[in-house]
């Protein structure tokens, strides 16, 4: 910014000036500031409008999930995973199921894997539209946000059709899904595939080449690839810095190897690149959903694993074995092998890992969630050092820090 030239008649004489003391302002950004989109605090040291240093305080919604998980049977932990990244809870749920299935050695049928892919990619779209449209709101473009919210609503209706819930979905079961895709769900997914592109194009038209948006986001909050890797960035934020690491491609799970999609990468790791990477990822997710729904295999939607998957309710009343299995599963008395397993899925924000240690008991001996937000958010002070406060808000917004995932 050019320095303001003071005209001679405005300059007071040296004698009139009070003695200047250099002092930094302390500014509390959060914990409940609307611009932080979640409950966490940043204590910023400001030199005028510029940020000199920042200190983060997190843990405001810490709910001790890892401790609670040590007392719960495996299927009850799904509800905990919902509440981590609540913008894309199906990814958390299904990632957890896949971890336990890996431990138990349950093979999930193709149809269930495809349904899971559809749900996870829809969840990725909802996650990214929130992030990108909120970034628009933070730059002053409120309208786009309202348009895409309607599309998120439609995805939530698909969730409702699948599992009855909207936000904290508790979707899927060990060994498959809890129900097949209903005709209504299939119709709604097809409708969504048709109706989403025009809306996303409109959002793109509003922001992608918008002069104000570009000026506000290009070279704002950038991070080099080397620093991003050191800080443990994954997901869209790492890809924006220029590395094409995606768990879906590198360690394919749930039949991701069957689908044709590309991984968008950025160059500068700045806010604009993060926006563009997420934007392109939505197109790719939509492509995956389309491929999955058109090539949906026939067959069962759950594995043939009666000791882990609940029998149909009618069977429970008539069949002794089904009753026993039902009782054992509900009471959490399934036989889990001793072992340790690390399973990662590509969450909305990056590599969402589950490190599970089982001692053969009904609950995990230890369960650790690798939460992407928690790991990359520590880079935030470095990223916004020297920028203005309003740019720092954009940087935070584009990182898509979800408070639930941050604190777990």
């Amino acid at each position, binding site marked *: 910014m050019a320095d303001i030239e003071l005209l001679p008649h405005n300059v007071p004489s040296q004698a009139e000036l009070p003695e200047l003391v250099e002092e930094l302002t302390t500014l509390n950004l959060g914990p409940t500031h609307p611009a932080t989109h979640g409950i966490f605090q940043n204590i910023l040291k400001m030199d005028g409008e510029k940020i000199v240093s920042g200190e983060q305080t997190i843990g405001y919604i810490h709910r*001790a999930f890892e401790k*609670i998980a*040590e007392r719960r049977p495996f299927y009850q932990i799904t509800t905990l995973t919902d509440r981590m990244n609540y913008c894309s809870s199906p990814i958390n749920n299904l990632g957890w199921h896949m971890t336990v299935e890996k431990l138990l050695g349950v093979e999930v049928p193709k149809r269930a894997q495809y349904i899971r892919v559809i749900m996870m990619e829809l969840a990725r779209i909802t996650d990214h539209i929130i992030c990108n449209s909120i970034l628009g709101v933070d730059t002053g473009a409120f309208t786009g946000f309202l348009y895409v919210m309607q599309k998120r609503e439609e995805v939530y209706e698909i969730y409702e059709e699948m599992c009855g819930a909207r936000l904290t979905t508790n979707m899927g079961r060990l060994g498959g899904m809890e129900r097949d895709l209903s005709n209504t769900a299939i119709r709604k997914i097809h409708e969504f595939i048709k109706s989403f592109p025009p809306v996303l194009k409109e959002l793109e038209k509003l922001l992608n080449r918008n002069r104000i948006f570009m000026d506000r986001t290009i070279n704002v909050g950038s991070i080099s690839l080397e620093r991003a890797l050191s800080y443990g960035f994954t997901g869209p934020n790492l890809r924006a810095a220029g590395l094409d690491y995606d768990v879906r491609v590198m360690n394919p799970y749930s039949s991701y190897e069957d689908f044709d999609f590309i991984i968008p990468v950025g160059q500068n790791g700045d806010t604009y690149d993060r926006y563009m990477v997420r934007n392109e990822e939505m197109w790719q997710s939509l492509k995956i959903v389309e491929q999955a729904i058109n090539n949906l295999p026939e067959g069962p939607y759950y594995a043939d694993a009666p000791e882990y998957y609940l029998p149909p309710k009618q069977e429970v009343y008539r069949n002794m074995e089904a009753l026993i299995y039902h009782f054992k599963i509900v009471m959490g008395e399934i036989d889990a092998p001793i072992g340790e397993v690390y399973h990662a899925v590509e969450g909305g924000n990056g590599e969402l*890992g589950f490190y599970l240690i089982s001692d053969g008991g009904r609950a995990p001996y*230890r369960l650790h969630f690798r939460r992407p937000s928690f790991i990359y958010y520590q880079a935030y002070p470095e990223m916004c050092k020297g920028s203005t406060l309003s740019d720092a808000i954009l940087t935070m917004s584009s990182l898509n820090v979800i408070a639930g995932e941050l604190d777990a």
Partner: protein
Amino acid sequence: MLTNQEVAEALLEKFGDQVFDFEEPFGLLTLSTTREEILSLMEFLRDHKTYQVIFLTDLTGIHFPDVPGKEFMVVYHMHSFIHNFRIRIKVSLSEADLHIPTATGLFASANWMERETFDFFGILFDGHPNLIRILNIEEMDYFPMRKEYAMEDATREDKIDALFGR
């Protein structure tokens, strides 16, 4: 493609008996080392010309109260993007001496993960720039993820574990 065998042999050659307990649960190379060697081991893997295990995926702790002398364990997960190769490194610590050198000099991401591990288990990362609690309140005077702290209120008598299948 990097195989577990290859890396395990290279590590054995470099570190000798300082790396031990090799395992492959679900295909993931797992090994143990001592806290004296952990930093040089991670640095070796990170700076190795061909392996390039440059990414610290995860760092966490585990409590094993029933294993005398090895009550605590710190677990590191590392990842090489070039070879799509993951490795898990474990370091056991005794309850009497919960010190381990910090990895913040190697990976910036270790900072909060080590704070979290300290917060939950009380493991002391020597040389950490800011080893204070991160998720729990600073006034807390115990380490909640240790096994001796039961989840539920210990004074309640109406919740009998046997009745709930625990």
